[in-house]
């Protein structure tokens, strides 16, 4: 059984105003097959956690550890982390000039598996996943994220999640900017991926809306770079009613 452990994680980011401490001691354990929702107000450090796990060079870990099945993730390059089984569905996926979705998916799958996928089965898998995500087959020949709408970009992230089959996926505000139809399609994709591979999920969101379609096992409330409270799905319901004010007030005093 796989486990992703985050221990006492402190992360700084360099800004024009100097060094800022964003994460101030985060502890989190995610087991295979579990869904953890991380919720919190803007600026609480949710996305920093996501990018730090993936290894974005902008974020500097000053203390703490991230372990995947006991292996030191922080010592791995970005691509090595992905090959080890980590996946980040990005909030703002970038456009890649000159690279078609087909070419990109095959290259990524080959990199992660260490060998090229068998052509027939792969083509069928891609087609079925695209169809389930209501993506037109013409997408396959478009360049990655080029001219995609916000909803199309998010579907493309979930397409990769389904095809690359990671052990753990971090979904960084995958729900933001989606209308209800797209939200359902994307949520179904996440649930399908979990049913198929039993992966662990760290679902980062500002809103409770997506939790109607993806049921978390645990909810963590993130405030000012740490976990302020945690509980079961009922905590999400309470946040829906009360918002984050309860957590912010003490900080304002």
């Amino acid at each position, binding site marked *: 059984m796989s486990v992703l452990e985050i221990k006492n994680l402190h992360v700084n980011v360099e800004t024009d105003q100097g060094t800022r401490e964003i994460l101030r001691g985060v502890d989190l354990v995610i087991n295979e097959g579990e869904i953890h929702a991380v919720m919190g107000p803007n600026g609480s450090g949710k996305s920093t956690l996501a990018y730090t796990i993936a290894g974005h060079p902008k974020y500097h870990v000053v203390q703490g550890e991230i372990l995947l099945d006991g292996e030191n993730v922080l010592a791995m390059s970005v691509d090595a982390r992905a090959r080890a089984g980590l996946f980040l569905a*990005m909030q703002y996926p*970038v456009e890649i*000039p000159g690279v078609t979705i087909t070419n990109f998916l095959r290259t990524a799958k080959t990199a992660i598996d260490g060998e090229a996928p068998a052509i027939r089965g792969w083509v069928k898998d891609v087609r079925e996943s695209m169809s389930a995500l209501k993506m037109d087959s013409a997408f396959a020949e478009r360049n990655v994220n080029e001219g995609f709408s916000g909803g199309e970009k998010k579907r493309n992230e979930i397409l990769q999640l389904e095809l690359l089959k990671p052990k753990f996926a971090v979904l960084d505000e995958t729900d933001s900017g989606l209308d209800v139809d797209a939200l359902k399609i994307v949520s179904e994709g996440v649930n399908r991926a979990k049913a198929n591979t039993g992966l662990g999920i760290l679902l980062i969101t500002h809103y409770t809306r997506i939790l109607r379609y993806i049921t978390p096992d645990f909810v963590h409330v993130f405030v000012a770079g740490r976990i302020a409270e945690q509980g079961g799905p009922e905590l999400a319901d309470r946040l829906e009613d009360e918002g984050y004010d309860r957590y912010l007030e003490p900080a304002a005093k």
Partner: protein
Amino acid sequence: MPTAEQHGFRPHTDGPIVPVQTRSERFRSVNVDDFAQVTGREHEWKLSPVATFADLTGGELDGSRLEIETSDAAGVEVSWIGRGDARIGRAGIPEERAAANAWSSFDEALLIAVSGEDEKVVAVTRSGLGATPRAAHTIIEAAPNSRGLVVLRGIGDARLSENVEIIVGEGALLTVVALQEWNDDAVHLASHFARLDRDAFLKHIVVSLGGKVVRVNPSTHLAEQGSDIEALGLYFADAGQHLEQQVFVHHDAPHTRSRVTYKGALQGQGARTVWIGDVLIGNAAVGTDSYEQNRNLVLTDGTRADSVPNLEIETGDIAGAGHASATGRFDDEQLFYLMARGIREDEARRLVVRGFLLEIVQKIGSPDLEERLTAAIEAELLGS
């Protein structure tokens, strides 16, 4: 049809419209003394490092035969012809001093004559040109209704100014690939002049990878009804390299068609590319269909890509005319995205550049050459 928005590219803005001298009114001569010495302020030289090749524009050139190596192909005759041959000057004559200097200096012209309706491929390689400033003249002549693919390749050292005339007979289908794989110090200035007869089709491809300064300027005269040019270009500029192409298409007869597509990648400090695309649609050219585009992919800081499309239209009765120019960059966020999917850094760069340039490579129509160019592009990527 690719759009300006593709490739995540920033479209160019037209900016203030500066009337250019009508292209057809430019001065032309085969005699070097009819041109003033090049200063670098002339419009056709202002984006070029003229000081690096003053010997080619202003000095004496060795006009003796070049060393060539030719692959055998049935239906292709390669020979040397004298300056007095009637074919010389049929496709076009120089508009600037380096070309006129070469024209005034060559002893004999290399003739590559293509005949016969079967598809055939011939490669002519120039090598070992050395450090002496040299002049060359080449004529590629495709007989009426003939088909063929001619590769004109340069390797090794060179300081060369040359003219290449391409005469495409009625109904002929000709592909010409000008392939610059010179050594790092080489300087190569070339003017290509193509004249297309009725219903002739020319695919003209400029591939510039090696050389310190490489400037290949293809002009195409769509002289007769129904003639059709597909002008393609692919260039990859490394640190300190200047790769330039000034493309001119003259629509001069009814129902002529042109498609100009040049794509370039830039990598390393001082990598510099220039693309100027002039299209002139003359008053005889009713029903013209024309589109030109240039795209540049910037891989690192410290590079500069100039991209200047110009369109002049002298008749109101055309089927279509358009242009596009855009320069985009492959940046750290794109690299992060690809690496976050398990792809190694070198492979990520290769993926992007190959995808970008492959559109041109795939249109060459010779599997051997396509494969070799793909490998050459990958070698360029590794060379940084």
